[in-house]
């Protein structure tokens, strides 16, 4: 078994898992953080996107052993007990999600973008979301929501 200790959403967590356990399985099966979804398991769909050391990655493409000692943020780490994250709020207001299965991954990708680039162009948003396949929405309302959340995060617009 592989022993891992890592920070997930700000809290230290440990587990002992088979070496072939992916980060996605670690999150879902060991920590019951099921917000990260398994859609293809090979890095095509982006439904499992999480942030590792500040960068959005496919959790299905990392082994648990690789994240030992690292910092992981999942969709469950965005909202506080008091409030939604501005991106989550915008996605709700714009009805950016339909079936919602791709949603956690998309929102994490959007967070990864806005953390690094607070004022992205529409093309940059499209680029940032191109690793997240969505079959329901045509992406349009997602892009609008990311633009809106960016305005709120930049302080140009009051949160609803």
């Amino acid at each position, binding site marked *: 078994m592989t022993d891992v200790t890592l920070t997930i959403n700000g809290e230290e967590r440990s587990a002992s898992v088979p070496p072939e356990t992916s980060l996605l399985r670690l999150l879902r099966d*060991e920590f019951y953080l099921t917000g990260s979804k398994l859609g293809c398991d090979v890095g095509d769909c982006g439904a499992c996107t999480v942030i590792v050391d500040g960068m959005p990655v496919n959790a299905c493409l990392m082994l648990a052993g690789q994240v030992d000692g690292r910092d992981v943020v999942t969709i469950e780490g965005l909202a*506080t007990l008091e409030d939604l994250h501005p991106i989550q709020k915008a996605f709700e207001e714009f009805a950016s999600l339909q079936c919602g299965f791709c949603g956690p991954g998309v929102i994490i990708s959007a967070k990864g973008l806005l953390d690094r680039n607070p004022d992205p162009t529409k093309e940059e948003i499209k680029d940032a979301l191109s690793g997240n396949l969505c079959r329901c929405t045509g992406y349009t309302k997602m892009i609008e929501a990311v633009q809106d959340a960016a305005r709120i995060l930049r302080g140009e617009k009051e949160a609803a």
Partner: protein
Amino acid sequence: MTDDVKVADKTDSLTDLKETDEDLRLPSVVEPAHFPVETIDTEARHQTPAVGQRATRPDGRLHGLGQTKYIDDITFPNMLFAKMKRAGISSALIKSIDTSEAEAMPGVAAVLTGKEIPVNSYGPSYQDQPVLADERVFHAGDPVAAVAAVTEQIAEEACERIKVEYEPLEPVYDPVEAMKDEIKVHPPHSNIYATKRIKKGDLEKGFAEADHIFEGVYSTQMIEHVPLEPHASIAQWDPNGRVTLWSSLGRITLGRADIARTLDMPINKIRIVGTIVGGNFGGKNEITTEPALALLSRKTGRPVKMVYTREEEFIASTTRHPFIMEYKTGVTDDGMITARKVRLVLDGGAYCSWSETTLGKACILSAGPYNIENLLAEAYCMYTNKTMTGAMRGFGAPQVCFAYESQMDEIAHKLGIDPLELRMKNAFHEGSASPTGQVLQSVVVKDSLEKAAERFGWKEDGQ
């Protein structure tokens, strides 16, 4: 050099596993997730009148938080995981299935084959699809056995150890070839398993009135729904002989009847719980693994979950019908359609599924939203040894629309009439009679043409 490196233990091989949780690589830690208790609501949800409001979705908030529980997010104590062995051969007789090696594997709780299924066939129109193929394989994605084990990994390896002996049969893949009925997919039945015909007016007279005749053959491809959530179900058989299925099925009432039929059980002993489905588009409108999971749960006394892999989503679920479409249309010099003749051939794949519905809708819609007095539309659906086709967003309409609207465009260009104007001339109006003679109400084809043209700026750059 390597002394200070921690090397993880590897259990030698799965065959040597002991039946302990650690050796079977089971999860050990449970942690709760967080969610916000206070959020701000959007106004539209609280306003009256309710209709017409841009109200937000309560499920939308859960989606964004990662709190929506799709089937794969649901876990029960002692739950087993199922996998299915797929044929990989498109047409064959099954001579034998040897499951002994799989059954002997540590961690394997049960193996199921088609012979154990009370009524091994299902389908919304014709019951031509086996839950698990037992005598014959009709397409390469057919399942031939199912395994329930303590982990997916073990179930998968057990599937590899199931030995199936096949006697290959000659397959047919091309729907036009299949029309000849020389190689039958479901003998003794004809490959042409559904036909439809719409006839209106006098076709010969209509073509005689035309100044121009346009003919074309159009074809479309096989398409997968690609819901982001793969098909998933959990079955739990209880001591009262009832079974509960948590399923990504999009039509639970009719699905329950299908399951009752395959299990030969009263309907009231079956409960289906639908959660939020992670994308359907017509692809989750019939049962798939549910009867097999129910029986695996009965065999083991434990809840059994199965989630399709992305590959199974392609090879073992329904798809959009490829169409071959022959169009012949008569038009006057000023662009009025006088007659249209349509022949459609649908590649129906290995099983009927929703093909009959697709065929019917395609045939009815095939002339387009236009007033055509003289019309003949004929459609045929063919069995082939390919992945089954079924319901998909539009039931044949996108295919015929590609054909009729491509031909409208050819007519417009040939006659030098603006494509918008050509459509406006021929489009249905309130009270138009449809190809089936139905008087149409709330018809706004022309409004949609004008509105889209205005929004696009169709007339702005000259044409």
